């Protein structure tokens, strides 16, 4: 790799090469824009002048030192984008945005409903300068409706969308996932909306449209079968999370402690179901099947009829005792050899060290020439045979591409740019 790779790395082979995306988004849309960039689109992150985007203040920070270019959140969500600065509170800034929108295909924004309209940068205004533009608005609850002005962060999205209710225990209540999943859902579902609008433009009249994405709805679409279970049985699926509840019926425990961590498995690891005999043999090989190694139990477990609670508890205890003394990865390997779909509980470190992902050459090393180091980033979320995904390099510095973008796309020369800078427009 050259000493100073270009930022972003070019990606002409991507399926979206040739499209341009303007990214005004916060946590609800930055990953969405990044994914489009990794498919080849030219993604331009638009930030306020000086301090840059507010999410540059999101922790954690590289070496725990907070600075505009050390936010790991910023690195993760904005890798491979170009950055320009533009003051939307000034008419001159809004004018630059309209001119950029005229040469862009997709605009992603996450402002509270009405904000873009106040600035004269909403879909009607932008489509007036570019009828083909697609405006993706990702908001907490959507553009209109009784909750449209409600404030939300990730946990509020998870709560109002129904996800948090599905987990947690009676004593301590519902519990969330530390890595923000309401934001993740809004981003990836927003990206689907953007892609459908892009495809629709191609097969229709070349016209763009407005894509109105709701984080609450994105979460509500990620509830397993809770919606249907209420609709059909009037039962609310819910925690405590150690088991699997399907269709309102609490299932057996799916999480077992091992010598070095935890493993997960459905159907009592295979001990109930048509292949129960295989699982019993596995436990019996080390003399740990207890009473299950008997004709009565073998028949009962293979019969596909629900177990009595005390029988289920006995099987759970037997399996728990078996797992407790063995390392998790070898348990999973042995289970998979027997056709049982077990998986280990991996921490982020173990995910990064996973031999499977290493064998698939998943991880990408990204050069941060500005601090003289390179770091491991996640690799392809999908592998397109002909038009591949590509990591596009590190996240941009504040306004790193002002000359490039304003010069190439809008034809502004150095003098004009300097004037705009002095008026604090860029």
């Amino acid at each position, binding site marked *: 790799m050259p000493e100073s790779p270009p930022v972003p790395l070019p990606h002409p082979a991507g399926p979206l090469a040739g499209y341009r995306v303007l990214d005004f988004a916060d946590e609800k849309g930055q990953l969405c824009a990044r994914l489009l960039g990794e498919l080849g689109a030219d993604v331009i992150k638009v930030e306020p002048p000086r301090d840059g985007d507010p999410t540059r203040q999101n922790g954690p920070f590289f070496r725990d030192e907070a600075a505009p270019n050390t936010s790991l959140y910023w690195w993760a969500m904005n890798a491979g984008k170009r950055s320009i600065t533009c003051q939307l509170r000034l008419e001159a800034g809004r004018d630059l945005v309209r001119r950029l929108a005229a040469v862009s295909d997709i605009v992603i924004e996450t402002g509270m409903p009405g904000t873009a309209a106040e600035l004269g940068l909403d879909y009607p205004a932008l489509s007036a300068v570019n009828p083909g533009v697609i405006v993706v608005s990702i908001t907490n609850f959507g553009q209109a409706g009784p909750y449209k002005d409600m404030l939300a962060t990730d946990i509020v999205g998870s709560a*109002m969308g129904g996800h948090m209710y599905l987990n947690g225990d009676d004593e301590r209540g519902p519990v969330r996932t530390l890595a923000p999943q309401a934001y993740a859902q809004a981003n990836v579902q*927003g990206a689907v909306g953007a892609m459908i609008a892009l495809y629709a433009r*191609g097969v229709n009249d070349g016209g763009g449209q407005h894509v109105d994405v709701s984080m609450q709805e994105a979460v509500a679409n990620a509830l397993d079968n809770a919606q249907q279970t209420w609709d059909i049985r009037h039962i609310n699926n819910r925690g405590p999370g150690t088991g699997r509840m399907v269709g309102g019926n609490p299932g057996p425990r799916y999480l077992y402690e091992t010598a070095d961590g935890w493993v997960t498995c459905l159907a009592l690891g295979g001990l109930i179901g048509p292949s129960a005999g295989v699982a019993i043999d596995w436990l019996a090989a080390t003399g740990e099947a207890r009473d299950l190694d008997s004709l009565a139990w073998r028949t009962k477990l293979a019969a596909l009829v629900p177990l009595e609670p005390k029988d289920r508890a006995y099987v759970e205890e037997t399996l728990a005792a078996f797992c407790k003394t063995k390392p998790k990865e070898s348990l999973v390997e042995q289970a998979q050899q027997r056709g049982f779909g077990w998986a280990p509980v991996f921490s982020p470190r173990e995910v990064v060290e996973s031999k499977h992902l290493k064998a698939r050459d998943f991880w990408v090393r990204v050069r941060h020439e500005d601090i003289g180091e390179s770091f491991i980033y996640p690799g392809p979320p999908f592998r397109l045979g002909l038009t591949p995904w590509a990591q596009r390099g590190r996240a941009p510095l504040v306004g790193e591409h002002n000359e490039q973008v304003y010069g190439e796309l809008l034809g502004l020369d150095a003098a004009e740019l300097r004037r705009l800078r002095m008026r604090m427009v860029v």
Partner: protein
Amino acid sequence: MSEGKVLKKPFAGIRVADFAWVGVGPTVSKYLADHGAEVIRIESSTYPEALRRVGPFVDDTPGMDNSGYYANFNSSKLGASVNLKHPRGPELVKRLLATCDVVTESFTPGTLERFGLGYETIRAIRPDVVMIAMPLYGQTGPWAGYSGYGHVLQAASGFNHLTGWEDGPPIGTGIAYTDFLVPHIAAVALIAALDHRRRTGQGQYIDFGQMEAAVHALGTAVLDWTANGHEQKRMGNRDPEAAPHGCYRCKDGRYLVIACFTEKHWEALKAALGRPEWCDMDRMRRRWQRLDEQKEIDRHLGYWIEDFTRMPPDSPFYTEEGVEAPPVRKFTTEEMMAHMQSFGVPCGIVQSAEDLQRDPQLAFRGHYWKLQHPVMGLRTYDGPSFRLSRTPAELTKAAPLLGEDNEYAWKTLAGLSDDEYTELLVEGAFE
């Protein structure tokens, strides 16, 4: 480009042969179906789709065509069935695939190949086909042959480790989480490939490993390890960046979440609480101080919220406000949320599936669709989370019965004559 002009649905004219099953695949093809594609689920009664065998079932009566779990992810689709183990099964499928633009599947790698239906074969029949294979772990690597479901993949891809109480086990999200995360990422790849095909005529193969897509939703957890050597771990409802950040019980037993990331949020919360003394203490002044005082803040907030919310009016414990003590304003949980929001505090109710059915915002947006199913009756389906202003989604029909559209698939599309079709039907080729 007049607004009034009737536009083509985005995927009108695209035909999809959908071999993908359980959660991930059907959600991907549902996007295409709800936006105009002709999606044909290809199933078999000899090896039925797992979700058809899992409830909730209408009237608690298990049946292939009676599962709400299956139905929700298969709106707007057609259903065909074929027994690939029948001597003519693979050939029939090939005849059908010749008419399809997209093939989706989510079997363990090698399954379709065993029936002579690998990508190379399909491409020979249909050179511009876009095919996406979506098993848990992708087509290669030591785990490629591993089986499982989203409920265990959430563990392997890091979500369990990040979910639960600080001092408790890695309980995970309570659901088969990755099944409801990765299909959206797969759909992005698939539609990007379709757009490339639209412009160039070229099809392609997509190797989609669910675990690899899921890793992209881990937020900062990967970089925190690779750049800082710090391992993030579950911490209940706390957040390393915000205080207070938690979940508080209301008198009616429901929960309210509150998250204060900025000084503005904190000032708003103080105002909403009526500026009690504790929150103006010196050690509450800065965000980093409040992060250390979470326990204290949670104790106060917990009391305050429980105190100021009330039981539902029909509760036996309900007492009219102000009867015994000096009048105290008591809120329903909804009113409490509105009160906090009116001051600018990000907060929300932990809503159940039941609450969502009554949620005024979801109702306003028309999130849920009611579709009539011949066996299950009028049922609720999820619509997409986005509204496209000019080519909106339309859920055209309820989920297909197993093999409901066999005559269309095998006679009209695959070109079987009436006699051939009947003969094969009797032989069990469509089971």
